[in-house]
């Protein structure tokens, strides 16, 4: 068992910023991430891709100084290290190369980032249907680019990835957007505040302009989505556009509906969570430093609510500054001045969020998919089966799990929990705000019993 000043879980923008601030002030840091290298999803492989950054736009290469900052001997770092248990007493158990280890610290910063919002419709489980985020990971980390892909859904990432594909000479075949005119109208009220983050707005317009000038067809306000796999391995994508049924054949259907915080660890430790009514997801309750209801556990970045990578990096710094002040590594004036300048930055960056949340709102069809849609991918349970169970008297998620097995597969509910809850709450006329966040329990990622039995006791 090894003891550190801080254990940071997640080496994306929030985690690496927290790690570098803490380490340069002299604290011993353990940085753990389950991906093969530093950078999280947003700065994935930024070091290796430096020479071809023109595909990925300037924001990506700005991650360079961040990932370089963790090359400091005060930071012990492990990649492909999966944290499967975090305890209130700040003990972290993590698996690396098939062996589990226990580490302890005075403080923990959770910087676990976000995952894409599950986007269920009939056929979303087929080979040839992947997420837009997954395609971007493949572009960044493996240099493989989607072939004649059709992009479906909504959100800034849809446009960013489409632009990156155009720049790499693999333009999408079409963009099929669930955004409606009503969403655009609703977002206008938040536009004045969003103007404070002019840089992001301009970037967004540049993406859309690029997609238009590349001649990529765009269909808006689409509904009734369905994918089928034909015997040649092609995806046939059906959708309704302006009341007319359309179909497109494609090798690869890339779907996206925004991102939601990854809260498996924070929920398993017993941190309080609340429902975010504009982002439609649970998030941990934190103060302005990222401090939680558990002493010494901080949360930074998108796992505490979606604000994007620039913001995440600043939240990481704030948490580290608070810990440095508490451990008397920095004086009161440094603490106040540094945090104030970060907060001013955050105010400007985050001013765009409500605008984006309403502009790319989640459509009803995604929150309440049709009965023939598979909702629990692992256990192959459809929306219809969930509804049938509820009508037969099943009450609550726990009963749903034990009686029809939704959410009992290997992903531990990461892909279905939100939708299953929507259906359940709708059925009983409840609101998300009135219920507690779903429980998660360790091991929060599957490990073998063999490995668990070999953990050495102190």
């Amino acid at each position, binding site marked *: 068992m090894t003891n550190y000043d801080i254990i940071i879980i997640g080496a994306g923008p929030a985690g690496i910023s927290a790690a570098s601030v803490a380490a340069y002030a002299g604290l011993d840091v353990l940085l753990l991430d389950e*991906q093969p290298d530093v950078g999280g999803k947003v700065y994935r492989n930024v070091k290796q891709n430096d020479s071809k950054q023109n595909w990925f736009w300037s924001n990506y290469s700005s991650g360079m100084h961040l990932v370089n900052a963790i090359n400091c001997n005060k930071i012990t770092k492990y990649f492909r290290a999966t944290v499967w248990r975090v305890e209130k007493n700040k003990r972290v158990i993590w698996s690396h190369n098939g062996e589990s280890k226990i580490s302890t610290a005075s403080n923990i910063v959770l910087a676990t980032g976000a995952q894409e919002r599950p986007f269920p419709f009939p056929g979303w489980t087929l080979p040839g249907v992947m997420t837009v985020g*997954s395609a971007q990971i493949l572009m960044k980390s493996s240099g493989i680019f989607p072939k004649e892909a059709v992009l479906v859904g909504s959100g800034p990432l849809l446009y960013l990835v489409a632009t990156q594909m155009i720049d790499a000479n693999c333009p999408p075949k079409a963009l099929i957007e669930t955004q409606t005119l009503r969403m655009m109208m609703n977002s206008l009220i938040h536009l004045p505040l969003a103007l404070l983050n002019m840089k992001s707005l301009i970037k967004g317009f540049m993406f859309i302009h690029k997609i238009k000038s590349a001649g990529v067809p765009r269909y808006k306000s689409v509904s009734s989505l369905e994918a089928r796999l034909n015997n040649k391995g*092609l995806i046939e994508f059906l959708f309704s556009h302006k009341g007319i049924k359309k179909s497109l054949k494609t090798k690869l259907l890339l779907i996206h509906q925004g991102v939601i915080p990854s809260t498996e660890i924070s929920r398993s430790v017993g941190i309080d969570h609340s429902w975010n009514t504009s982002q439609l997801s649970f998030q941990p309750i934190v103060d302005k430093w990222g401090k939680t209801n558990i002493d010494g556990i901080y949360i930074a970045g998108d796992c505490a609510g979606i604000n994007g990578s620039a913001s995440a990096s600043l939240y990481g710094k704030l948490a580290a500054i608070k810990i440095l002040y508490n451990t008397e590594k920095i004086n009161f004036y440094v603490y106040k001045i540094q945090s104030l300048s970060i907060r001013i930055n955050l105010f400007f960056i985050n001013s765009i969020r409500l605008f984006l949340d309403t502009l790319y709102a989640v459509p009803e069809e995604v929150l309440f998919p049709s009965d023939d849609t598979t909702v629990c991918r692992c256990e192959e349970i459809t929306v219809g089966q969930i509804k049938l169970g509820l009508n037969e008297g099943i009450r609550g998620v726990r009963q749903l799990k034990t009686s029809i097995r939704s959410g009992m597969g290997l992903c531990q509910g990461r892909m279905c929990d939100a939708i299953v809850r929507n259906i359940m709450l709708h059925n009983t006329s409840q609101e998300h705000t009135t219920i507690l966040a779903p429980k998660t329990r360790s091991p929060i990622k599957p490990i073998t019993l063999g490995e668990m039995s070999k953990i050495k006791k102190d």
Partner: protein
Amino acid sequence: MKPDSRFNTLVKSTKDVNFTLFGEVVTAPKGSTLAAAILSHSGDAFRQTETGALRSAFCMMGVCFECLVEVNGNPNTQSCMILVEDKMVVKRQVGLRQIGICEND
């Protein structure tokens, strides 16, 4: 019919490894995740579920557990979370993992 890869390989690597994919010896760039290596060779399913439904890699970040394959005899291996290695033997996983056939347990 075996579907072609759904991806274009744009970045050629200088260092390659050889591994066996669904019974065929193929090459992949060193440092690539196994899932990426499979996707660049084949548009076919990675696995079959208990009911026989076809599934492939979906999220590429360790969340969805759809990219499970059998690697060197170990079933239920998330191919997006491991790097491809020389002489790796990768088999399609059919149905649920069977208890007692995992080498390292």
